């Protein structure tokens, strides 16, 4: 048997057996961590703001990222703490969409020398992603595990997005790649503006997603 066939068979076996393995969380309580990790991608305001911030930082990679990520991470922790105390709750969707619009417009226009606005937008996004991550009331430990997952998930999403966009631009130097990313940013700004308008017209709509 060749090495390639062996790898293919091993991969098939893994795929076939994954269902059984997934039925059991490897560490007790870790399911909450996984759910928390996915939470920043679970609602349109969070997703749009992360996409916009990722594009903004990726289009200027590595430049302001060294300041923006720490600002994002610290603000995310602050947002979690403030949200746990009940502060800023209820504002997160509006704030995330507004921040997403600002980030996406800055990304689409690709204006130079914008370290301070990039840091401010990253901090804003992190803060309200932290507030949005607060789970329902429950025992302390599961809440902490879920919040830890949300914190890790939000940071990973931002880092991966920014890195992916930055790598894409570095790998493909053709002009249209950068322009395509800016067009994507314009589309994200457009969708976020629509969601924000819907949210302001009908706060119970959750941005028109029935949340």
């Amino acid at each position, binding site marked *: 048997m060749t090495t390639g066939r062996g790898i293919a068979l091993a991969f098939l076996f893994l795929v076939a057996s994954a269902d059984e393995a997934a039925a059991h969380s490897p560490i007790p309580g870790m399911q909450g961590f996984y759910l928390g990790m996915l939470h920043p991608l679970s609602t*349109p305001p969070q997703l749009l703001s992360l996409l916009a911030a990722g594009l903004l930082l990726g289009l200027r990679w590595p430049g302001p990222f060294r300041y923006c990520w720490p600002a994002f991470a610290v603000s995310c922790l602050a947002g979690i703490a403030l949200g746990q105390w009940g502060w800023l709750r209820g504002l997160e969707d509006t704030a995330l969409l507004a921040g997403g619009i600002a980030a996406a*417009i800055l990304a*689409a*226009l690709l204006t130079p020398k914008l370290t301070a606005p990039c840091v401010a937008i990253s901090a804003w996004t992190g803060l309200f992603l932290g507030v949005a991550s607060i789970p329902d009331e429950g025992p302390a430990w599961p809440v902490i595990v879920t919040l830890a997952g949300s914190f890790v998930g939000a940071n990973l999403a931002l880092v991966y997005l920014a890195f992916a966009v930055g790598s894409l631009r570095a790998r493909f130097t053709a*002009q*249209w790649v950068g*322009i395509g990313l*800016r*067009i994507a940013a*314009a*589309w994200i*700004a*457009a*969708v976020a*503006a*629509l*969601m*924000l*308008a*819907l949210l*302001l*017209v*009908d706060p119970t*709509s959750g*941005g*028109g*997603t*029935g949340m």
Partner: protein
Amino acid sequence: MPDFFRVLFASLLLAGAALLPSLALAHTGTSVAGGFLSGFSHPILGWDHVLAMVAVGLWGAFLGAPAMWLLPVVFPLVMAFGAVLGIVGVPVPAVETGIAASAIVLGLLIAFAARPPLWIAAIIVGAFAIFHGHAHGTELPDAANSFAYAVGFVIATGLLHLVGIGFGLPVKKPAGRIAVRAAGGIISMVGFGFLLGLA
């Protein structure tokens, strides 16, 4: 295959693919897919929208870089502003007339090979984008899944720009230039048809 035919083939393929979602119109229900298809099909099934979107791409290609790429960045941003006006209920006068006028004006600009400064081109396109956005925005709150609807109609609008850019790329060749200007004339005439209620 020469670049011209490759671009033309890709544009036709994209245009054909963009028309396909009309087959799924029966499903405008509560699902994400239903909302997306509803939003995606809204600009594509309205021929006045199609003409204007394609004309934006066509004019951008005619003007060349950076207008070719700047106009598709400007249009969705301003269109979203128009849609926000529609959602919050701010009236914009003569929306349908504005949409028809966008096809007429953009078509004439292409037909007469107008080359204004980039910022004037952006203002012209942006002004018309408000009418298109308002028309989409007034229908958005009725959509079951507005997020999917918004994503669908923004992507469809962008793809229509790309179709226009694809058709406009042969403008560098003498025959292509004539074809693009003729297309502008046709767009303008059809726009008149919309304005007069003939189309």
